């Protein structure tokens, strides 16, 4: 024990006296730190965490390979180790002391870098500092052990330099510390999973950025520990005190043995791609945490207020501050500046009624009916157009759960997804007709995913309660029983009431699909949270709206879908030629819709064109009446149906509202503040307000005066990330 302590003490003294060591251990990392911090916009949000992590990883790698490996080889070459050979010690004190002194040298750098990041660049203190410390210590040990092992298998200074360069550079460049892994080809990302440095880097990133603990990074920690143990064992076994003692070249195969834990990790990764996914989400966090100042824009707050000129500071994914009039220079706030003059900043738009599995166009091409392939692109299309939240009103529950998770973690880029569970309807009721043509087994499966048909109040209660754990954001019930030639079984009123009561008991909002006045009345009486569609068959009396207002019930008129149906029936395709629609695509679907409409493929719909147009007019009339009665309005498009393609839905909806006579501001409130409240997210989205999520839409012009400006998108921000709209479809176009 004494020999260990004495040797460690001496080693530390020697390193403190060695100027080159001081330069490499202290000056270099700090220099790197400042250069990276300044050039990479370190002050602008989470980038500084990234910079800290980079510098720490570079420090650990350098300390291990150069401070450990190179130094040990040098001491042998200089006949220094030879002197220790004749003393009654094993190589263990020398190996252990290399590990310990490496750590003792490195820790002050780590503390220094983190402190500077905190005080100079405003990085928060690491929340999981204990996990971070343990991870760093084990990381430092493992790379030192690796270095010592290299020294044990290298026969000369040149050899050890070659081996070190061969390991150091790939490990540095592929770890993610220098270039984000997610920008590399997938095969290279998988290769990276075979390197210990990648796991070191990723683990630290998850601890620093995602506040993960050691338990979450157990496999990485175990792999690093295994490297430490194997590295120490091999360098002990093969230890040589004198340069004259040569080792067979085959001994270099031991390097591979030390890497074995990571070969296992890499193989596992290649199989699960777990880390790669995690890495994507970490990268997303980094982008979300960027600090930026949107300068001198008109701000539409989302509650009806308009600020003619203000600057909004986004930081750590939130709205950090709003400066009325003149704002301090972006530089003084450590922020990137985005020019907002001549533009209007609004909360991201919200569509509370979409069907993600439906194509949103007329087509018989099967490729548009595969939800797994299409839904991610559709969610991206919403984000592309500045619709930053959608609520699915009837899609496969499993798919919604999975998508919501992927979007939530940031692994997949798309709009924020809220989802109502399977639609509650009667047996043979509206919603079940889509599955009639499917073979029995598929039909069963599809129905289990998308509809519930309770026969009794008790069954309804059970079914609602069973959905709560699946993460649904609400319950959808269908009262509509159709009209004219198309009729459906209607949900029993008693059962319906039970559904509403059960949902409320679970704290879930209820969204009721209505078709006629009776449906509306029943749903008001039952206490629904929102009414979808209302009715197009008759004008809704003011007295009904008064009751809706009194009950605080939201009204979602879905004018977009009525317009689309009316236009299609009339053989018109103008809606499909709108610029934003074409940008969001997919082009093949738009093309197909046009062809169907123009070639009269839509059958008897065209025959009823006049009646359908009449219904659309009634819908607009009802909306205006609702507005005048003071009912809370929200925008929903019923996208997926007819030619309502996924993406630019809310834009059209508010244009139609304005066309119906609703003031611009009221329409925009329906698309932002009101809709957010209906989603139960009114405390974090839907408003441009300090502390709210930085989920915003910047448009050219002033939609409060010219509603068409809502389609002239300048920028979209989701939770602070400035969305790169030009690249958002790249992944999907490739396929």
């Amino acid at each position, binding site marked *: 024990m*004494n*020999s260990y*302590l*004495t*040797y460690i003490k*001496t080693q530390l*003294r*020697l390193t403190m*006296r*060695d100027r080159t060591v001081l330069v490499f251990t202290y000056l270099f990392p700090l220099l790197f730190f400042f250069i990276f911090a300044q050039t990479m916009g370190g002050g602008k949000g989470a980038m500084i965490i990234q910079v800290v992590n980079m510098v720490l990883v570079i420090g650990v790698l350098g300390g291990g390979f150069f401070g450990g490996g190179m130094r040990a080889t040098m*001491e042998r070459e*200089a*006949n*220094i180790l*030879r*002197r220790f*050979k*004749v*003393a*009654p*010690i094993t190589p263990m004190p020398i190996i252990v002391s290399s590990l310990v002194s490496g750590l003792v040298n490195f820790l002050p750098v780590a503390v220094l870098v983190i402190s500077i990041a905190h005080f100079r660049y405003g990085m928060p203190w690491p929340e999981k500092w204990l996990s971070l410390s343990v991870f760093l210590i084990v990381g430092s040990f493992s790379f030192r052990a690796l270095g010592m092992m290299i020294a044990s298998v290298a026969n000369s200074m040149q050899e050890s330099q070659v081996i070190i360069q061969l390991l150091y550079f790939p490990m540095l460049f592929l770890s993610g510390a220098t270039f984000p892994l997610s920008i590399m080809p997938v095969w290279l990302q998988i290769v990276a999973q075979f390197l210990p440095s990648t796991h070191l880097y990723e683990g630290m990133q998850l601890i620093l950025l995602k506040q993960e603990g050691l338990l979450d990074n157990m496999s990485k920690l175990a792999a690093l520990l295994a490297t430490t143990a194997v590295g120490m064992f091999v360098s002990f076994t093969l230890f040589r005190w004198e340069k004259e003692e040569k080792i067979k070249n085959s001994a270099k195969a031991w390097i591979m043995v030390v890497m074995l834990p990571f070969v296992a990790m890499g193989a596992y990764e290649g199989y699960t791609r777990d880390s790669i996914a995690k890495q994507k989400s970490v990268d997303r966090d980094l982008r979300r945490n960027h600090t930026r100042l949107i300068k001198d824009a008109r701000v539409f707050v989302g509650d009806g207020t308009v600020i003619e000129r203000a600057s909004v500071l986004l930081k750590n994914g939130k709205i950090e501050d709003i400066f009325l009039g003149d704002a301090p220079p972006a530089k003084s706030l450590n922020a990137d500046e985005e020019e907002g003059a001549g533009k209007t900043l609004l909360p991201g738009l919200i569509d509370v009624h979409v069907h993600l599995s439906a194509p949103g166009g007329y087509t018989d091409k099967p490729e548009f009916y595969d939800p797994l392939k299409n839904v991610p692109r559709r969610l991206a299309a919403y984000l592309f157009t500045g619709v930053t939240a959608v609520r699915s009103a009837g899609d496969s529950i499993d798919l919604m759960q999975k998508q919501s998770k992927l979007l939530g973690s940031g692994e997949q880029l798309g709009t924020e997804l809220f989802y109502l569970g399977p639609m509650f309807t009667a047996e043979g009721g509206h919603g079940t007709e889509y599955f009639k043509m499917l073979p029995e087994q598929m039909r069963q499966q599809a129905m289990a995913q998308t509809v519930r048909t309770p026969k009794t109040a008790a069954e309804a209660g059970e079914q609602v309660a069973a959905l709560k754990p699946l993460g649904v954001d609400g319950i959808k019930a269908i009262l509509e029983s159709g009209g004219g030639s198309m009729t459906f079984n209607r949900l029993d009123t008693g059962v319906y009431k039970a559904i509403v009561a059960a949902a409320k008991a679970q704290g879930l909002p209820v969204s009721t699909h209505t078709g006629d006045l009776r449906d509306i009345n029943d749903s008001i009486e039952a206490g629904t949270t929102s009414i979808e569609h209302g009715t197009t068959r008759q004008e809704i009396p003011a007295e009904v709206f008064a009751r809706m207002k009194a009950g605080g019930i939201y009204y979602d008129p879905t004018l977009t879908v009525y317009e689309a149906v009316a236009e299609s029936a009339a053989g018109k395709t103008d809606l499909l030629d709108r610029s934003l629609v074409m940008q969001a695509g997919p082009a093949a679907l738009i093309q197909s819709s046009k062809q169907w409409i123009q070639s009269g493929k839509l059958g008897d719909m065209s025959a009823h064109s006049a009646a359908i147009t009449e219904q659309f007019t009634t819908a607009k009339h009802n909306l205006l009446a609702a507005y005048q009665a003071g009912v809370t309005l929200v925008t929903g498009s019923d996208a997926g149906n007819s030619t309502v393609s996924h993406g630019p839905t809310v834009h059209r909806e508010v244009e139609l509202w304005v066309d119906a006579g609703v003031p611009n501001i009221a329409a925009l409130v329906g698309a932002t503040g009101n809709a957010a409240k209906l989603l139960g997210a009114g405390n974090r989205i839907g408003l441009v307000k300090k502390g709210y999520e930085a989920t915003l839409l910047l448009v050219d012009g002033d939609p409060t005066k010219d509603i068409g400006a809502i389609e002239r998108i300048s920028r979209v921000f989701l939770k602070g990330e400035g969305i790169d709209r030009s690249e958002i479809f790249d992944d999907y176009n490739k396929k």
Partner: protein
Amino acid sequence: METAIAVVDLHKNYGDVKAVRGIDFEVQEGEVFGLLGPNGAGKTTTVEIMEGLRPRTSGQVNVLGFDPDIQSRQLKDRIGICLQATNLPDKIKVIEALQMFAAFYTRSTDCVKLLERLQLGEKRNSFYSTLSGGQKQRVALALALVNEPKLVFLDEPTTGLDPQVRLEIHSLIQELKDAKRTLVLTTHYIEEAERLCDRVAIVDQGKIIAQGTPRELQERILGQSKIEVDTVEPIPPEGIPQFPFAEKSVISEDRKSVIIHSPSPAKTLVEVVKWVDQSGLGLEDIHLKRPTLEDVFIELTGKKLRD
């Protein structure tokens, strides 16, 4: 006296190369034993086997009661080793180096006093890199003594040092000898062995070709003492008489000098002086030359020590 080292029929092979081919010797406590031989003779291998640094191929070795192959840790703890061509880190202070190594042993001496004894007292806070060659060698010697060993191995302790420093080291070794430490010295300086060693073994090609006290070895060579006589007048053509014990004589070309070989030079010398005096040749100069270890070595191996 007890036996400090006993080596019996020691062999060491490196693959096909037979570095040591059956060596036997003993070293008694308090004795200074020299291993003399050219480079590659096998002396360093033999020493390293005794030090426990290298396993032997066959034979028996006992050092201070330990088998170096099995008990190398215990053995190393008791012995001192001064290696040739070792180094210490540049920025280590002399005293730190001593204290560090002292910590490795179960028994250690007062490092400050040790440095004083080796005339390194003033240098104890100097960095190793600032020391002269002689000082570095004295540090190496000091490191060999930190554990107060009874047995010290000195591997070519003066190789590469200038004559002045070599003398300093010699006097230090002499001190150790006076302090009754057992010393094993390898060298290829013949004078060093003659001067310091109680007994010498000459190693060549993995074998001991001769061993004994330096004097015994000298005497092993037949009448190799030489009497060299220079005269004022040339020696007459009839030559010189047959002196007692004289074995052969060689007269120089100018006939003013003669070399007489004799195993008992003292007795021969008296008669030679008498003869020169009586013959009136005039005595210019007279030397008695004893054979050196070098001569012994050349005689035994047919080659010089340093070639």
